[in-house]
């Protein structure tokens, strides 16, 4: 989606130009791991995230030994768009399914691809405990703050005041609580080796999202623990917006509520500061 990549044009320096003297520089080539055109709505971020995953797996030459663990939601058909061996999971259970896959085949690259309804609501136990165990797989967590496939209902990630088909007057935190900051929560767990939140709001963020996804798979290769990339994304239909309005909201309101960045990269010394004995928090005796 990056402007520079598109400007390069497809085929520049690609196969078939060999023999010619032109030293064309490849600025974009569609990943071979992408297959069919997707059926996602115009302006949906899933297509971008699929491409980024495909690009990264291709760059790292992992496609032939990667197993995709799908989930339930709009991305349920990911196996139709990514040329990877793939497995379906019951709603929310992808992290448990991936645990079974990776434990039996630790020599394979395993990742789950889950939305926020799937991961942050019905699948919270599975993702928390897979992360706590430090399972050696990667989770691509696409957060658009809504249940897209079922018609745009409120999700645990829906922002306060946001109107959805099941919060018609806007999410009321008094009765429905507050958005769940999944990646921040998981960052506290020592089993989490890498955790980042990124966005697909504009070409710059897409580039950073690609870097984070690449780093997550590298961390999986290092076999030290769990890695997760939360990708903030859009749902123009569910948000009742045009694609460009949705991208604008993603870049502003959504990113303000969900800060992007690398939260954990333990082998590079990035980890959240946890309360330590003698630390700045008040002890129970002081507190009372």
């Amino acid at each position: 989606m990056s402007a520079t990549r598109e400007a390069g044009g497809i085929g520049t320096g690609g196969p078939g130009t060999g023999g010619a003297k032109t030293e064309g520089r490849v600025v974009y080539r569609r990943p071979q791991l992408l297959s069919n055109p997707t059926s996602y709505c115009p302006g949906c971020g899933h297509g971008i995230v699929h491409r980024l995953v495909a690009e990264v797996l291709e760059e790292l030459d992992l496609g032939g030994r990667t197993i995709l663990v799908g989930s339930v939601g709009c991305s349920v058909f990911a196996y139709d768009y990514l040329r990877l061996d793939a497995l379906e999971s019951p709603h929310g259970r992808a992290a448990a399914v991936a645990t079974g896959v990776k434990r039996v085949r630790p020599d394979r690259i395993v990742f789950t691809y889950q939305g926020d309804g799937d991961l942050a609501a019905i699948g919270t136990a599975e993702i928390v405990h897979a992360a706590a165990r430090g399972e050696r797989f990667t989770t691509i967590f696409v957060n658009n703050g809504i249940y897209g496939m079922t018609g745009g209902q409120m999700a645990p990630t829906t922002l306060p005041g946001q109107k959805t088909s099941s919060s018609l007057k806007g999410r009321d935190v008094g009765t429905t609580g507050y958005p769940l900051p999944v990646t921040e929560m998981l960052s506290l767990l020592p089993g989490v080796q890498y955790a980042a939140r990124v966005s697909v709001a504009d070409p710059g963020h897409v580039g950073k999202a690609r870097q984070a996804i690449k780093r997550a798979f590298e961390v999986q290769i290092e076999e030290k623990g769990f890695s997760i990339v939360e990708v903030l994304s859009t749902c123009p239909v569910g948000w009742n917006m045009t694609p460009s309005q949705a991208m604008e909201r993603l870049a502003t309101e959504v990113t303000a509520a969900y800060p992007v960045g690398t939260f954990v990269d333990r082998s590079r010394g990035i980890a959240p500061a946890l309360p330590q004995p003698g630390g700045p928090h008040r002890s129970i005796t002081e507190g009372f």
Partner: protein
Amino acid sequence: MAVLDQPGAETLPHLVASPPGTGGEASPLPDRVLMKGNEAIAEAAIAAGCDAYFGYPITPQAELLEWMARRMPEEGRTYVQAESELGAINMALGAAAVGARVLVSSSSPGISLMAEAMSYMAGSRLPMVLVNVMRGGPGLGSIGAAQGDYLQATKGHGHGDYRVPVLAPSSIAEAIELVGDAFVLAERYRTPVILLADGILGQAMEPVKPDFRSVERLPAPDWVLEGAAGRDPRAIKSLDLRPEDLERHNLVLQAVYAEITAREQRWAGESLDGAEVVVVAYGTAARIARTAVERAREGGLRAGLFRPITLWPFPAQALRDAARDARAVLSVEMSAGQMVEDVRLSIEGAVPVYHHGRMGGMVPTPDEVVDAMRRAWSTSDGGAS
């Protein structure tokens, strides 16, 4: 019968690393060791070549998980204590999809939680063996032995049109044998299989031969996920939004179930020749029924025992044949009367069918079963045949 009657080609005895009571020195092997049912089932699964076990603690099957926690790592195999029964069964789903021979165990409330993934595994045609050490219900119920999950195991469990073979041992020695059969059935037909035990079978200790059987591996199947290097990608799934395609998939499943029904019914009969009262019972209830049949015969009542070993497929024709000349049929269960529905469907009204059951972890005594047999005998006129 075909599959179940064929032992694995390589039937090398599997040596128990440290049989209970032998202090870890396994040589020479004793003829018999005393083993708890849960532990015997676990060790039988290891001998059968179980690659991966996933579980969650619940009484009365916890010793099975504990045994696996110790033994699977010893064997260099996969063991995970999951965060819930949902976690355990879905880990099994993942492990099965990459070709592992998988065992999961739980007890009634935990089995209910597993219904969703069982449906997915049936729809995705993934093999797995699930042990249910039944306890009293409904709800949290009790931790006593019960058979209230018969309908759950044989009729539904999860959503959608599917069945899974259900094997019901009535002794620990038979449980060991059926664990191997369960893996054979699971892989031959690409289906989950349930081993339906109960709290007494799980908790009791009985002498068993410590040479558990191994189960031969089929050639590597062409559906296993391993990464798509050098070939087209594979997808293991149950989703198909086109009704025509999903019906076609269902027809394939139904054809498999028809084949299982035709080939894999298994049962045992005792004293059935000339029996006027045929008692039908499985599992622990069959142990009690056997004693009751002996006492009834001592008292002059010609009674016999028909013991289904496969609860699905239910051995309907065999039961019909066994009861042809009987005056009454009595289903004895540790439930309010669940299997009796299959007994009635099998008998098709030819002979009156009665039920005697206890619930909530209560176990019928042989004498009350004898009384029930006598009542069944005297209530039926017997003149029709």
